[in-house]
């Protein structure tokens, strides 16, 4: 190598070195990060195996629908009408009814949790039914320690009694108004259909926030950040170089999860794939931004994981409307959910899967996600300096 070429090389190096943003350097960092992500089995596990596990879990294990609830039916009255009512209980698919003649038999089972409730058809049932002016009484006992199930038992039991009553005699006053409910978007009220789109939001939060926070903290912990900071690479290049691969990973995971949801779990995709991808891409902005912000505050993997868990994962789980409906929350908690980006994503996902491309809904949510994401990025940029101070 002669002196002249050395000189040009030095000048070249300096020229590139002094450029604030150099696409070649960025590509080098992206390539490096991709290699690392591909070689780390835990990354692939989180991106591709975890979504499958979560979807399976929400599809089969977690169900908010009460079906085949175990109840007892106590027939203290031996009459024919009582028999017919009892038969109505065993006929519905909502109940798995067992029969008894003494309430003491079932009371113990309720205490031990074998039954979630029981219905008592009292001895004077037939008499009151026959007598004009009096209504027969049926008692419903439910397990208040499972409030949700208790509600179901009560309502379903009420329904069973009413429909039995309606078909019983012409003498009874016909009901003035008959309610005919229809459940839109999810006619069979299958909670799986509402849960699986939400699960995708959880997966994206884990990849976007948790994984990003961990990989940046890992660079600090292992001392590799110090070496990279001492090169001409700028903060923007280093950070974008970190985020791009995880953005791609998040999108791939979304596609995979969506394909699984539609093909295996029978969730309809009524909107367009393009809308789904756009929504996911925009959601990655606050998710990655949050991960970045966490990692700039904590340079320790353990702490970063804890913060990501409490500020990213748990809110996405509990405050996004994924499991618990936001409208049912107290006003203060409702106000807090406005800051949870997953909330907008869950709503959008439910819409795009179950309703279709409803752009007014999307626009509102996209805007909110972009705004929160922008805020995270501004904060993260402020907290990151190109030195070790």
């Amino acid at each position, binding site marked *: *190598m002669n*002196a002249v070429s*050395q000189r040009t*090389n*030095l000048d*070249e*190096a*300096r*020229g*590139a*070195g*002094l*450029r*604030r943003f*150099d696409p*070649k*350097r960025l*590509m*080098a*960092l992206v*390539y*490096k990060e991709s*290699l*690392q992500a591909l*070689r*780390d089995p835990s990354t692939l596990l989180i991106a591709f195996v975890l979504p499958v596990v979560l979807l399976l879990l929400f599809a089969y294990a977690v169900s908010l629908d009460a079906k085949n609830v175990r109840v007892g039916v106590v027939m203290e009255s031996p009459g024919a009408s009582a028999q017919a009512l009892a038969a109505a209980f065993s006929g519905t698919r909502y109940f798995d009814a067992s029969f008894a003649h003494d309430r003491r038999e079932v009371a113990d089972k309720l205490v031990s949790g074998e039954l979630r409730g029981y219905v008592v058809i009292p001895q004077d049932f037939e008499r009151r039914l026959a007598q004009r002016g009096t209504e027969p009484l049926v008692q419903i006992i439910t397990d208040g320690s499972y409030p949700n199930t208790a509600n179901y038992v009560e309502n379903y039991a009420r329904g069973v009694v009413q429909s039995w009553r309606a078909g019983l005699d012409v003498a009874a006053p016909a009901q003035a108004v008959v309610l005919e409910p229809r459940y839109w978007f999810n006619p069979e009220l299958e909670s799986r259909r509402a849960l699986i789109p939400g699960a995708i939001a959880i997966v994206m939060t884990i990849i976007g926030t948790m994984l990003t926070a961990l990989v940046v903290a890992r660079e600090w912990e*292992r*001392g*590799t950040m*110090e*070496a*990279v*900071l*001492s*090169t*001409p*690479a*700028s903060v923007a290049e280093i950070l974008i170089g970190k985020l791009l691969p995880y953005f791609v990973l998040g999108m791939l995971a979304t596609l995979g999860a969506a394909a699984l949801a539609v093909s295996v779990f029978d969730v309809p995709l009524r909107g367009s794939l393009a809308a789904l991808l756009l929504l996911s891409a925009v959601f990655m902005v606050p998710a990655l931004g949050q991960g970045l912000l966490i990692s700039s505050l904590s340079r320790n993997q353990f702490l970063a994981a804890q913060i990501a868990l409490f500020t990213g994962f748990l809110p996405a789980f509990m405050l996004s409307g994924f499991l618990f409906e936001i409208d049912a929350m107290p006003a203060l908690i409702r106000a807090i959910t406005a800051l949870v980006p997953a909330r907008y994503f869950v709503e959008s996902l439910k819409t795009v899967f179950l309703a279709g491309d409803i752009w007014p809904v999307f626009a509102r949510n996209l805007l909110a996600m972009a705004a929160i994401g922008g805020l995270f990025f501004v904060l993260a940029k402020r907290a990151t300096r*190109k*030195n*070790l*101070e």
Partner: protein
Amino acid sequence: MQVSPVVATAPKSADAGTAAVVIEGVDKHFGSVQALRTLSARIHYGRLTGLVGPDGAGKTTLMRILTGLLVPNTGRVTLAGYDVVRDNDAIHVASGYMPQRFGLYEDLSVMENMRLYAQLRGMDSDRNADLFAELLDFTRLGPFTMRLAGKLSGGMKQKLGLACALMARPKVLLLDEPGVGVDPVSRQDLWRMVQALTDDGMAVVWSTAYLDEAERCESVLLLNQGQLLFDGPPQELTAQLEGRSFRLEDVGAGRRSVLTEALDLPSVSDGVIQGAGVRVVLRDGADVAQIQALADRTQVHLAAVPARFEDAFIDLLGGGPGGTSALAERLPPVELDSEVAVSCRKLTKRFGDFTATDSVSFEVQKGEIFGLLGPNGAGKSTTFKMLCGLLKPTAGEAHVVGHDLRRATGAAKSRLGYMAQKFSLYGLLSVRQNLEFSAGVYGLEGGVRRERIEEMITTFDLGDWLSATPDSLPLGHKQRLALACSLMHRPPVLFLDEPTSGVDPITRREFWTHINGLARKGVTVMVTTHFMDEAEYCDRVAMLSRARLIALDTPDALKRSAVSPERPDPTMEDAFIHLVESADREMEAAA
């Protein structure tokens, strides 16, 4: 090795004579901790400058300021003419920096790491294929380009770090403790590489806590507690000590008591054991009469020896500690049934198909100081851990004071004291709680327990620190505390795993004073170390290389084995390199 001048840096003529780095009145503090105090110095092109000082002297802080990774509180620094704060971007082009911790990606291969750094420094790896070839040749990493960086040995990692720092030909190369965790053979390679670079006009800064490394630099900046103590060629400082260094030759078995006596003399400022001899440094202006009298009394020859950089360093810091160990004074002499305290026969440990320790056998006498030495990955830690019952041997047997480690691990453990690397004290407990915990863990109760704890507190002078946390202690006190905890149950055998790594020379001397005292009371001491001069304290040294025991003898005999025409008086390090290399040759010949 063929050293090629790969990294021709800035044109020599333009920069010759001007300083590569100018440091003016730099102060740096972290909270209330003052890391650097009004430091001013210059570093020149074409020269290897050593940044020398014990741990916590401020070396890394200064390095990070030079690379623009930390901002000084006051004062200014320029590197290659650029201000490190204002022209931060230019600094990163003009300097190559190798952090103290391996800063490369362990899950990327050698080549991938090199490509990444080439691109980050704005170089095209395709067009610079010949530079890559040269760097690989220079670092001798050519055969390992596909290997993951995490699978490299300590020495090869440092060479890779050097190759990456050399990308794009920096004018100033900053190496933060490149010699740590590197065995002497690889260290030799690093020196040769750096030599070639400075010959080419590059300014190289090499920070180190090893004083023998400092001696090899052309110029040194000597730091202690953030203050610059000396700036100039190391010989200049050493010359001030001329005529004050002596050696009591061939003292033999009595050398420990001779050292104690010598150190307690008012005219002696510093002393260490060197093989069978005792090396002493007299105080400034002191008379040779006292030490001569000691030599006459013990009937040994007193010879004047050339001063070392370490002598000068200790002298600058006010001399070493006294020779009597208050701890050892209190200990009752150790009584053992057998003269053999520790023994192992055909000790072997395999991890999968990797053999970490291969059929190692030796016996250690009661009261002996026995050293285990070896390059990184030679298997000394594994051997050590099997001997103190922390690892189960795959084959072979080991005994500690008569207890078979395969069967009576618990009984053996109660008869040995163990001081782990980096002291392993409980940071969230106070000093007293640490002492109480170790007393409790060794089953001391009631009166004995109170008595022992009080004894340790008075012996090690920990009274003022009882409610402090170990981390807030000065290093010397921290080491005393760790030693106190491992000696709480008065074990007849003491295991020390790299006890003085990262400890300044004064603290190290104080530590060895205690160890010498313990050995004189009959405590058997097993020690691993990578400080070659510390191996001199040992009665016998076992050298391990590639899982096998390649030599076992007294330090003097090991040194004698390396004598050659061009090396009439080899150091422990020379002996080490010689033995490892000839063992490697034998293995290759056998293969």
